[in-house]
């Protein structure tokens, strides 16, 4: 925890005024990162009736949050402004009642187009991939597959148009949305299927995919080979200097004993975090495929199919990196490089599936059956509660503090009545 201590805010502000501190923003972010509390007075207009399987935050304004439910419903919230007391409105929703082109089954992947927010991509268990025009909320293009697809991803580097899709039969499909071709298939994994695909952050040609058998493979889509690296949890290949891992394609190496549930590249582009069904989280060096021996302890993943981790890494100091890991009904915060567990965020009533870190407003969005917002606003929230309390007292009501707080917390429901 001491790693995330920063200088006193007065000193920091003074240093900024004198031009002595160049990474003011990052230091302030660090101050907030490890101190998240639940924003009790921020509510998203409730929409989902089933559990929420995935969310996606748009990357150009960090403003619009897409969430997809287990019943195929999709909804978009405006996450601005990040005030203390606010109700975030729904921008649009896609469901049976509002949109004929809706998904009928669980939403597996939601993707915002990386370059702007005029387009987003949804993948459902109804074997359909849809490309949407955000402004009109209409599908621009649609792909239907013969097999189930569990994951889709699009590279975040500029000028890319290729979506990678992982199928249940182990096929890795590439779709170029510019041309509409969807025929390119890489048979990288075995028949147990692919759980997750993720493009590298900094390279539009490299792809990581994780199988249900616990294999994590790195593929270069330009090359004819199925993959160029397979992650090995025992570091057999990478520890042994004689064997060059890039040339050997041993199929025996696995990253996890059971299916991989999460695959997340760190913002520094040289580390990868994987979370498996074997309740382990591993940190990998992307460049040589070595597993870094960081012990995070067992992480129970329960029965959630795909988990999204949120990583935050400070630009001024790469060692200050955090990961927010869904852990049953709570969210655990770990320091990535040391494995130290910092805090646990409690607030959800059902198992959490997705964490998303908004680095612009320094907030965390998590979802189970509802979406909660976490931010470093403990003091303000206390001040607010105090001012509400004194206000209540002024009106000479005889309610206890508990009742008041309770009322505030659920004011959302009252409003709806």
């Amino acid at each position, binding site marked *: 925890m001491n790693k995330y201590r920063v200088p006193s805010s007065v000193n920091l502000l003074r240093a900024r005024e004198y031009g002595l501190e160049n990474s003011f923003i990052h230091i302030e972010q660090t101050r907030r990162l490890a101190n998240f509390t639940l924003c009790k007075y921020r509510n998203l207009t409730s929409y989902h009736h089933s559990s929420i399987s995935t969310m996606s935050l748009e990357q150009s304004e960090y403003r619009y949050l897409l969430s997809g439910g287990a019943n195929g419903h999709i909804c978009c919230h405006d996450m601005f402004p990040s005030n203390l007391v606010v109700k975030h409105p729904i921008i649009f929703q896609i469901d049976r009642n509002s949109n004929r082109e809706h998904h009928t089954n669980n939403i597996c992947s939601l993707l915002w187009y990386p370059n702007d927010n005029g387009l987003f991509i949804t993948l459902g268990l109804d074997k359909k991939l849809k490309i949407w025009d955000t402004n009109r909320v209409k599908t621009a293009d649609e792909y239907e597959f013969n097999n189930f697809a569990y994951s889709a991803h699009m590279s975040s580097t500029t000028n890319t148009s290729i979506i990678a899709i992982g199928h249940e039969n182990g096929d890795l499909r590439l779709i170029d949305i510019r041309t509409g071709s969807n025929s390119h298939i890489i048979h990288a994994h075995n028949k147990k299927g692919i759980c997750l695909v993720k493009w590298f952050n900094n390279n539009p040609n490299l792809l990581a995919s994780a199988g249900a058998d616990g294999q994590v493979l790195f593929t270069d889509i330009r090359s004819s080979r199925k993959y160029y690296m397979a992650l090995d949890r025992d570091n057999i290949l990478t520890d042994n200097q004689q064997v060059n891992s890039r040339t050997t394609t041993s199929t025996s190496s696995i990253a996890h004993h059971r299916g991989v549930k999460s695959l997340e590249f760190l913002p520094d582009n040289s580390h990868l975090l994987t979370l498996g069904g074997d309740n382990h989280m591993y940190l990998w060096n992307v460049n040589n495929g070595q597993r870094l021996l960081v012990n995070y302890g067992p992480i129970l993943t329960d029965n959630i199919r795909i988990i999204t981790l949120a990583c935050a890494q400070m630009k001024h100091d790469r060692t200050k990196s955090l990961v927010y890991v869904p852990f049953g009904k709570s969210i655990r915060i770990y320091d990535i490089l040391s494995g130290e567990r910092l805090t646990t965020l409690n607030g959800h009533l059902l198992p959490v599936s997705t964490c998303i870190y908004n680095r612009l407003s320094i907030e965390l969005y998590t979802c189970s059956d509802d979406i909660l917002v976490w931010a470093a606003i403990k003091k*303000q929230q206390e001040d607010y509660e105090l001012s509400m309390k004194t206000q209540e007292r002024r009106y000479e009501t005889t309610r206890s503090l508990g009742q008041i707080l309770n009322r505030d917390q659920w004011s959302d429901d009252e409003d709806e009545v």
Partner: protein
Amino acid sequence: FLFLLVGQDEFSCIVIGRNSIGIYKENEQILEIDSPLLQETTSLISYCPIDDGRRYLVTDDCGKLYLLILESNKHNGSSSTTITDLKLNLLGEISISRYIIYLDNSVAFIGSNFGDSQLIRLLPEPQNGSHLELLESYTNLGPILDMSIIDLERQDRQLVTCSGYAKDSSLRFIRTGIGIHEHASIDLRNIKGIWALKIDNQYDNHLVVAFFDQTRLFHLQNDEIEEIELPAFDFQHQTLFCTNVTSNQYLQITTYSIRLIGNNGQNLLLEWKNENNEITVASSNQTQCVCAIGNELFYFEIGPASLKEISKCQLPYNIACLDITPLNSRDERTNLCVIGLWTQISVWICRLPTLDILHRESLTSDTLPRSVAMITFDGQPYVFVSLADGPIVYYLLDIEHGLLYERKKVPLGTKPTTLTICQHTDLSSTSNNSRTVLFACSDHPSVISSTNNKLVFSSVNLREIVCMCSFNSEYYGPSLTLVTDMGVILGRIDDIQKLHVRSLILGESVKRIAYMDEEKIYIILTQYMDLYQTDNIAPIKKMKELTEQQQQDDAYNSIVVLDQHTHEAHTSVKLLNNEEATSLCVLTFADDPSIPYIAVGTTIVFNDEDVPKCGRLILFRYKNGHMNMVAEKELNDIPYRMLPFQGKLLVSIGTSIRLYKFSLENHELIQLSKTSIECVECLELKVKDDFILTGDLMRSLTVLRYNVDENKFENIAHDPHPQWTKACEFIDDDTFVCAEDGGNIVSCHKNSGSTKEQERNILNELGSYHLGEEINLFRRGCLVTQQTSESAITLETCILMGAISGYIGLLLQLPPTLYKLLMSLQLALAEYVPSVGKIDHGTWRSFDSDGRSNVSSGFVDGDLIETYLDLPKTVQHDLIKDLHGENNVQLNATVEELVKIIEELARIH
């Protein structure tokens, strides 16, 4: 902090740590320096090698300069040397440096972020205890922590900035005009004209002063002035012109006659007079002389003891003014004469000696020409005409044909202007070259000079000048005599620059400044840090009783009161230990409007605390050099900013904004209201009428209104985007500007007219622009004052901004049509003008913050626009040939209009 220098010859390197220096060699022990100069608190900043690589200059963060010497012994018989010892010597004190570069001949340049950059010479022998000699220092305003615009007398303004850090901290007084250094003054009133004469001397030593019906002669010897009468001079009439002419003779032209005087003023050699009429105007150079009697013009040539009437002619109207100054100052004669006429208001050019009329230029104005002058700037001859109601019209002059072209008009004063050509020597320039400048004497005296083929009009900080002449005195050096309605001033003017900066070294960091008009004092918040102190500079405050205490504390904050004129500290108040002053304002309370109060917000900082938890508001009253604490209020957060607001005190404290009133009975600050919507950290606060603009640490702007009846803050509008705001300001009621951490500025618009409440509550981003400067603050106002009503721009919306680098920028709201025109011109210019480092203008100016980027919009780059003035004529034409606005609307503008607008814009900064 680690610097690595690789030694030559062998595998070794010098490592300079924060407070240690060592040599690391391959397979050998570390050789570390052991010097009493390197203490625990020292932190070395920069280094540079001196020629031979055996000596290094090292500087630390307190502004000390050290010399690091590597001692070595030569191996016998081999060429390699081994370094055996390191030595560190203290050379002296410099500005706190960022970089140091050794140039040559023991001269080094010190680049400083916190003080003036310096050029120093290293001396082999110490002088006054220092091995350094300061050759030159380069003004640096950064970092600007705070600034205040102060109205002086006569519509003049001064900008005071809090600049620098630690021992290099200073107040900088910035003015646009040229200051006068007075050497001597003579109490004489009602002077009509003044001329300098060299009588029996190579320097000017006599002054001829003309009054309405007489002339007086003064002799100046050293600093003594006495009135004398030389027999050959005519003291009974008003002198119109007087000068030294060829072969050691003097020419005095009075209303009565033209007198050629020789023999050091003893003999009258020749006299020419017209019996019937008085001479009205006259002008002369070394060998030529013209004078006018009504509408008759006479031309004379002057030789040794001869004054020959060569020609005369009659013009249709009376002559108002004339000039025959040679265009090249080395010449003794000219072949052009320029004349201004009455009635048919015009300027005529005639050929000398024949007096043929070459050119007639009508002045198209209702007022008379008062004075004309021919002058060459940068090889381009000009004719300047001053009009009776103040403005100056100038033309380019074609010497061959005597043609005038390219008329331009500049408003200067409001009273008749007299133009005088004089010699000016810059103080700072090392070469003693004087240059010719034109002095415009009026109620808004100005010096007209030229830099890079552009005319510069610099106003002189004097009330009113009737007439003047240059006076190259042996005793005072090159000077000017300036005649005001109060008397004659003998003095010299500052260098001709746009901005003049004077600094007041404080010796301790200054953070905030406020000005109290009633008492004419500056109040500053300073921070004394023992660590950064040196013996040479004493801190500004003069608290004798506190000297014993000072020894215990290594850092403390104080409030200091300075006199506006003398800059002397009247009094100072020291704050508690660990207490840091954060905000300051001067205000009067509605309940007690007679006395101004000083409010200071402080916070108590413990270094192990993440966020300070307590602070206080202190209220002072200042009277007769004493600060009396009137009230004090404990706070639980940091008071970031304070402002007077409707006779109350508005403070942004941590996450909220609170309003206080002052109760006279109890001497207590009473909280009236507090915002209900919490922000993260409310860093900036601005007020306009009822409206309050706040800038948040992490969020963008919020606009509030204070409702007096309900005693409540109402949330009017906010910008929903997260943004690391540093400073903000009102442009007008509905438009706001803010600076964010990434060096960008953003303007926001409030949609007041909208019918939907949701739209009204949102601030829309209007424009964004990458400035590349870390703005610390915005201040409304501008250094120049509006001079004429006819200009297309108003200065009401002017905003000055101060940045860490010492940059001071000016923001001005443009009217829509002008904006469209300049924006399209900017696009055209960006393509034509080669950019620095081939970085595309659009790319450079596009908004780019951590995680977010956007194309630049809504801001016109003034620097780029002004390059238009320097372009050749043909290019200027080509560029605006097809200017398109939005939607491809053709914008019609002529080069002349555009140049006029841009020159006007250039003049306001």
